[in-house]
């Protein structure tokens, strides 16, 4: 099996179960080498659940040994998901006692609400959203429970005012992403976070009822994650986009209204187009037709570029973010934090203050150069 064939096979696994998906699964068992490579790639991309579903339905024929290996991998992935859901229930209970509202994001919420069987959607961390005004309190609750913050705050108060999320590590090694919003700046700052606190959609985990975002916000979050968090977009996030757009209950009209209000139409279009192209989805729905026609504005293209090509260049992100920060005081506070991070942050990043500043100036100059030649 060549690299290209292997990639097509992995895409076929990622698309399994979608109606009229493009890449097809092989009609007979793979040879052992190809199977081993597929299984390793499935694990990396968290597609164990989709592989198990395909094997179970005999859509992907296997030898008895291959089936046993797929079952073992799926069982291990499910054991991880259950341990994470126990952690999620514990967090929900702690936050409930501290009167901190919470919404479950991505993994567990998608698994229970958007896939027919939660065993199909694997995840490896816990993502929760809390209101900005409760963020510091939420960190305190988790630290008191033994969690450790991975990266210090850029400057005190930055996360609450401008941040996307912060990550804490649980003593047993799991990670909790505590979100204020759904994306990094600049897109994250354009999201009206009040929209994230519309009535949550309930789902049961054990004997607890947890709340997720409403269907439209969930679909948009899947799009932000797929289109912005990795370049090129990864398979499971793209599957989430297709799954929620095709099988979910989100009202496409409301999704477009929210995307427009959040200055995220280009993100929605990019995610849906990538999902349809990569997974070879044949079904046309309102959003896929809209995405095909959508042409981003110059500003949207620049914002997408900041996320997708320029990666972690903080200076360019900062410049793009400024237009979404209301008021001179807030703009000044944001710039102050970007220019003068606290020592603990720089120490953890392994960079000195002068290097941080030099990197920023260099990326700003190259941004200006690109701007002139655009």
């Amino acid at each position: 099996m060549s690299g290209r064939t292997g990639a097509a096979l992995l895409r076929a696994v990622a698309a399994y179960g979608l109606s009229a998906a493009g890449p097809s699964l092989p009609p007979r068992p793979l040879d052992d080498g190809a199977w081993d490579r597929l299984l390793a790639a499935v694990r990396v991309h968290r597609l164990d659940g989709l592989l198990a579903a395909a094997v179970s339905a005999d859509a992907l024929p296997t030898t008895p040994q291959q089936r046993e290996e797929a079952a073992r991998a799926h069982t291990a992935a499910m054991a991880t998901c259950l341990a994470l859901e126990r952690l999620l229930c514990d967090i929900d209970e702690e936050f409930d006692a501290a009167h901190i509202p919470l919404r479950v994001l991505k993994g567990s919420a998608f698994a229970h609400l958007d896939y027919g069987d939660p065993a199909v959607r694997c995840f490896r961390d816990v993502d929760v959203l809390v209101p900005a005004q409760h963020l510091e309190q939420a960190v305190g609750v988790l630290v008191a429970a033994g969690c450790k913050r991975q990266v210090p705050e850029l400057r005190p108060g930055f996360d609450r005012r401008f941040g996307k999320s912060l990550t804490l590590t649980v003593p047993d090694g799991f990670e909790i992403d505590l979100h204020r919003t759904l994306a990094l700046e600049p897109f994250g700052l354009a999201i009206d976070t009040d929209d994230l606190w519309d009535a949550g959609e309930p789902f049961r985990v054990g004997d607890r009822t947890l709340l997720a975002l409403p269907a439209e916000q969930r679909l948009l979050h899947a799009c932000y994650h797929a289109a912005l968090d990795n370049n090129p977009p990864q398979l499971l996030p793209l599957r989430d986009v297709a799954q929620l757009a095709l099988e979910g209950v989100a009202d496409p009209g409301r999704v477009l209204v929210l995307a427009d209000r959040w200055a995220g139409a280009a993100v929605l279009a990019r995610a849906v187009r990538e999902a349809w192209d990569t997974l070879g989805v044949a079904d046309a729905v309102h959003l896929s037709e809209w995405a095909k026609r959508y042409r981003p504005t110059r500003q949207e293209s620049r914002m997408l570029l900041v996320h997708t090509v320029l990666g972690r260049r903080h200076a360019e992100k900062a410049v793009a973010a400024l237009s979404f920060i209301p008021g001179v005081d807030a703009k000044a506070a944001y710039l102050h934090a970007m220019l003068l991070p606290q020592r603990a942050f720089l120490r953890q990043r392994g960079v000195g203050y002068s290097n941080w500043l030099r990197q920023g100036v260099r990326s700003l100059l190259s941004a200006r150069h690109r701007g002139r030649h655009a």
Partner: protein
Amino acid sequence: MSGWVRAPGVLWRTALDGAVLLPPDADEPLVLNAPGAALWALLAEPIEFDAAAAALAEEAQVDTERVADDIAPLLRELDAAGAVTYQP
């Protein structure tokens, strides 16, 4: 209705060829094979031991006594792990 039933708070998933359970106080997950998963499915509602054995025997087209012998230790294990409870 009386009988054996899943204990509250047990987290679980179906797995390829079985099921995975995580009872509230367990350190490690319990992995059930396909017949174990079939029993777990029945335990969604309270069911007496004999009725569970009969239902599984009918589904698998085998002798009820043989199934009863097979599921008795499994039910004991699930009970000991806190995954099931008897509802009087």
